[in-house]
């Protein structure tokens, strides 16, 4: 029925199946939308946040999706600026995933603020010294860039492309895409970094505070770096999941392996930098404020040493070692294990840099504070996932996302 919209030369599941899939995921989406409306109408008392946990699940979700969506800027950077041409076969998907991640982040932010109707104050009354201002500006601008990168894809839909204006527009946008990609990389460098700066500058919070250069704490650079390392891993992971779901090979192995190799080296160097940072913080920064490392990891039910080891070794060093070795990248299982670990690692790092910062007591007579999100918070955090799945489903069905699909899956 919708065959006129489906790209030529590829096979898609029957429309009925597709609609059923949309309905199931759509139900989850509606649940999230319901929770979102509750939060907007009744206010943030719908959450389990409190005066110790002003930043909680949502801010974590924001930081995590932006790190995972980092695949878009870094792949774009590699493809357009460094000139790794093979990556053109995965860049569309990286852009789509980035688009989903960033639109989700903006949506979550809109739910998270106490007075959503005043959201524009962050631009209008901008305090240029605040990391959050930098985040807001770069995030919105970069979202515009991602939209610009996504539009030509939409225009390449078989029917849209028949309209000469759309064809020309998409062609022209492709022509100067390098300019947009460069702007995107510039913006991403700053907002990924300033997200790291959000906690790094909090000199009242010894667990999060880091020294640095000029106005930027070390976390600024670590966040950009880890996003560039783990974002592409997430792109690979989603590609593998899509291949498993559609039961088709969509991207050639050499493309995936190239991206995996670059990620591996980024991750390894990140591991080294993160280790040095942790060591310096544990032995110089925190003690100067009167804290031992053990003060941060003991005396509470959740945040033990395991979290430090999991984040840095299990989800940092291990995937890095897998990805830099040829055998590791070529073996399907170990590749998937590595990208899963890397994605978990970066998410865990963001968790630590938001939630654990709030949990650690600072005044000597204060207590650890624990928190578990309310269902409304969980639902609104799952909402973007459902939205992402739907957008990927629709985009995959109707748009030529994977340039190699035809070649890899010839229709006889």
């Amino acid at each position, binding site marked *: 029925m919708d065959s006129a919209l489906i790209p030529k030369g590829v096979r898609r599941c029957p429309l009925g199946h597709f609609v059923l899939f949309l309905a199931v995921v759509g139900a989850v989406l509606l649940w999230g939308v319901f929770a979102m409306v509750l939060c907007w109408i009744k206010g943030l008392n719908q959450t389990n946040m409190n005066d110790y946990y002003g930043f909680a699940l949502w801010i974590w979700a924001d930081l995590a999706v932006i790190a995972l969506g980092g695949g878009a800027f870094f792949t774009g950077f590699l493809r357009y600026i460094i000139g790794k041409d093979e990556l053109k076969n995965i860049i569309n998907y990286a852009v789509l995933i980035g688009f989903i991640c960033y639109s989700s982040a903006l949506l979550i932010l809109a739910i998270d603020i106490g007075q959503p109707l005043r959201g524009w104050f962050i631009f209008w009354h901008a305090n240029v010294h605040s990391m959050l201002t930098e985040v807001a500006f770069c995030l919105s*601008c970069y979202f515009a860039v991602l939209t610009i990168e996504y539009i030509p894809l939409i225009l*390449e839909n078989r029917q849209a*492309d028949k309209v000469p204006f759309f064809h020309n527009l998409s*062609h*022209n946008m492709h022509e*100067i895409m390098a300019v*947009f990609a460069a702007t995107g990389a510039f913006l991403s460098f*700053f907002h990924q970094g300033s997200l790291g700066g959000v906690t790094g500058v909090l000199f009242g919070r010894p667990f999060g505070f880091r020294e640095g250069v000029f106005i930027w704490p070390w976390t600024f650079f670590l966040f950009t770096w880890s996003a560039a390392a783990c974002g592409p891993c997430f792109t690979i992971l989603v590609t593998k999941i899509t291949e498993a779901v559609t039961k088709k090979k969509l991207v050639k192995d050499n493309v995936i392996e190239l991206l995996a190799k670059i990620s591996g080296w980024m991750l390894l160097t990140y591991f080294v930098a993160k280790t040095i940072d942790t060591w310096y913080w544990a032995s110089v920064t925190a003690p100067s404020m009167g804290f031992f490392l053990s003060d941060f990891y003991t005396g509470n039910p959740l945040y033990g040493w395991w979290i430090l080891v999991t984040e840095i070794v299990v989800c940092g060093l291990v995937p890095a070692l897998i990805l830099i070795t040829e055998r590791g990248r070529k073996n399907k299982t170990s590749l998937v294990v590595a990208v899963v670990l890397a994605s978990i690692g970066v998410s865990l790092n963001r968790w630590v840099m938001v939630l654990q910062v709030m949990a650690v007591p600072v005044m000597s007579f204060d207590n650890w504070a624990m928190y578990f999100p309310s269902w409304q918070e969980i639902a609104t955090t799952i909402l973007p996932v459902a939205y992402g799945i739907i957008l990927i489903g629709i985009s995959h069905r109707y748009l030529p996302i994977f*340039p190699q699909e035809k070649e890899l899956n010839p229709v006889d």
Partner: protein
Amino acid sequence: MFPFIFEWIWDMSHIVFMGGLWYALNIIGIGMTYCIIKAVVDTYQGKGGHHHDEACECGCDNHH
């Protein structure tokens, strides 16, 4: 965000920060304006009217 808002101060931090912002916004804005205007001109010149099955004569990534 704009110099006419009262908390604006002409200091280094504002110039650097807002300079970066407006620089990026301008590139995005000018880039998109260029694409759209050129697309309109191209359309009037009769480009892009080929049928989908043919390769794009302009050599872009589309349908390759």
